[in-house]
């Protein structure tokens, strides 16, 4: 069963990979090359391995070694050494901007990567978006029999929607949500009106539990510790799959992108670029989405999506329209300062 599916995917990949050979890269021309791929571990990296790395190995003869999890301090140390062990790394959009500024990345080679396959919102000079995820309003389906919360303003409405809520233990996304709840429109959001955001956050602080890891955000809903809060779309999907009474709203979902990047000084730069190119193929992205419900950056990948998965993705035309992409350059410049203020706010 799995085998058949894989063959279909590969056939698709081969068909789309045709322009590659036109550029003079025949099959098996990377035999003997080893590329180290680093991501976040778990089911996600497994999906990436099956969907990107294995087709890449088949097509080029190269070998891909899995490593991880991605760690900012490690990445920095490697790039600084000039001879990184990692060749292709899955990083968050926030780190992408920091790494560009600090010169830690190889520029993406448009001759080797089909950037036109990816929605331009998710392409950078130094990284290619591989998945999109979003911060959504998650809520308990049993706590509000008279109508569930829909908007970020509802999250701050303790009268209409009483009970404990959960926010991330970081200013990223929390400040955006506070301002959206206060009536700021997404196009006027950046630069953030920080004072106003904290003032708004004050109104629910006493009713808030803060989560530090994604699994914790999920667990808080499973244990009925909270009735609503900010949570990633994929985590609501996972919790719902496991039987939790949870759902999400797509209203003003805040989107963030994971990018594949090549650390500065990679000894396998060209092979690394071509592994990234394999990621851009629609069929490969479809496979990741069907395995783990993360949203594709190549919108053509939506065609093959399992109808059960589709409503959970943030890059379907419908959900894309209702959301917006978080400004990572804003956070690159202000993260340290605002994290300090966030901690001070929590302690106050």
């Amino acid at each position, binding site marked *: 069963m799995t085998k058949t599916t894989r063959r279909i995917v590969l056939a698709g990949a081969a068909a789309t990979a045709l322009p590659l050979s036109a550029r003079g890269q025949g099959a098996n021309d990377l035999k003997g090359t080893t590329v180290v791929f680093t991501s976040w571990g778990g089911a996600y990296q497994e999906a990436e391995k099956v969907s990107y790395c294995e087709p890449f190995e088949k097509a080029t003869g190269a070998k891909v070694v899995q490593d991880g999890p991605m*760690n*900012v*301090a490690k990445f*920095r140390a490697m790039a600084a050494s000039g001879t990184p062990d990692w060749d292709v790394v899955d990083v968050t959009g926030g780190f992408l901007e*920091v790494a560009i500024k600090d010169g830690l990345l190889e520029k993406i080679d448009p001759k080797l990567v089909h950037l036109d396959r990816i929605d331009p919102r998710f392409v950078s000079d130094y990284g290619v978006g591989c998945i999109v995820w979003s911060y959504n309003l998650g809520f308990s389906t049993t706590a509000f029999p008279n109508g569930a919360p829909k908007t970020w303003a509802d999250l701050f409405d303790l009268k209409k929607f009483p009970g*404990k809520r959960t926010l991330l*233990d970081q200013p990223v996304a929390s400040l955006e949500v506070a301002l959206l709840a206060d009536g700021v429109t997404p196009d006027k959001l950046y630069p953030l009106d920080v004072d106003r955001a904290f003032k708004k956050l004050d109104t629910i*602080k006493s009713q*808030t*539990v*803060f989560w*530090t890891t994604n699994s*914790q955000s999920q667990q808080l809903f499973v*244990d*009925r*510790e909270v009735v609503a809060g900010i949570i990633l779309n994929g985590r609501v999907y996972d919790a719902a799959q496991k039987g939790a009474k949870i759902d999400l709203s797509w209203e003003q979902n805040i989107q963030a992108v994971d990018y594949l990047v090549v650390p500065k000084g990679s000894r396998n730069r060209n092979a690394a670029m071509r592994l990234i190119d394999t990621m851009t193929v629609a069929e490969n992205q479809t496979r990741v989405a069907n395995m783990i419900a993360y949203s594709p950056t190549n919108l053509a990948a939506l065609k093959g999506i399992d109808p059960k998965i589709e409503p959970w993705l943030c890059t379907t035309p419908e959900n894309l329209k209702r959301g917006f992409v978080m400004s990572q350059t804003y956070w690159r410049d202000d*993260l*340290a300062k605002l*994290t*300090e*203020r966030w*901690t*001070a706010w*929590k*302690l106050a």
Partner: protein
Amino acid sequence: MEARVTAWLVLPAVLLLAVAFLGPVGWLLARAFTYPEPGLQNFAALWERPVYLKVVGNTLLISAIVTPIVVLLAFPVAHLMAHGSARLRRWLIFLVLVPFWTSLLVRAFATAILLQRHGLVNSLLLSLGVVEEPLPLLYNFGGLLAGCVQVLLPFVIFPLYSSMARIDPAYMKAAATLGANPVRAFVRVYLPLTLPGLMTGGILVFISTLGYYIIPALLGGPRQQMISQMIQDQIAAFGNWGIAGALSLVLLAVTGVLLLLLQLTVGLKEIAR
């Protein structure tokens, strides 16, 4: 001759410590003065921005509250262990060791399961009619306290037990014969003899709590931010080795001062006895 052989056998452990511990720690601490440029700017930043000092103060305060609670709870357990029957002692040692051998993470989650809104403790209180609404036991100071205390109890129980087991019961009898009432005999004779165990355990708990990371993150609330979490944030999120080094140095300095105080009051020799 024998001493010289032993001295050589110590070498691998010393080397391992030097390479795997002292080296990296020294490197991190040096960063406090060299990152991003040589100077004292990292310490100036700690001093100028109230949030850092607040977290350091917070950490000290939490440790100062956790330590006496652990010591008070451990004392009767150790006493029973030292002076109860052999059978009771075996059971007590077993009961203290099992959680001691269990992973910290597992124990933190176990505490969370007990204390959460729909957890065991709240369900019991609700069904008994003691409370009408679930009590907020988790994600606040109480949750942090419960977690720290249960994890750290063995660190006081065992040193105390070893001190107490060495106390000759004849001392207490002698005190009674000489006219001391039980309270006086306890305070003047028994307690001073347990002091080495008490101080060792207390210091262990205090220093361990200073460095706690997982417990406050999982069980504490927004106000229970501790210094280790901040050091981790500075490195993992911002790659700011300078501030992280400076915070680590503060943590190390506080620990050093405490050990010095201990040396001046009780004497480390006494503890090592």
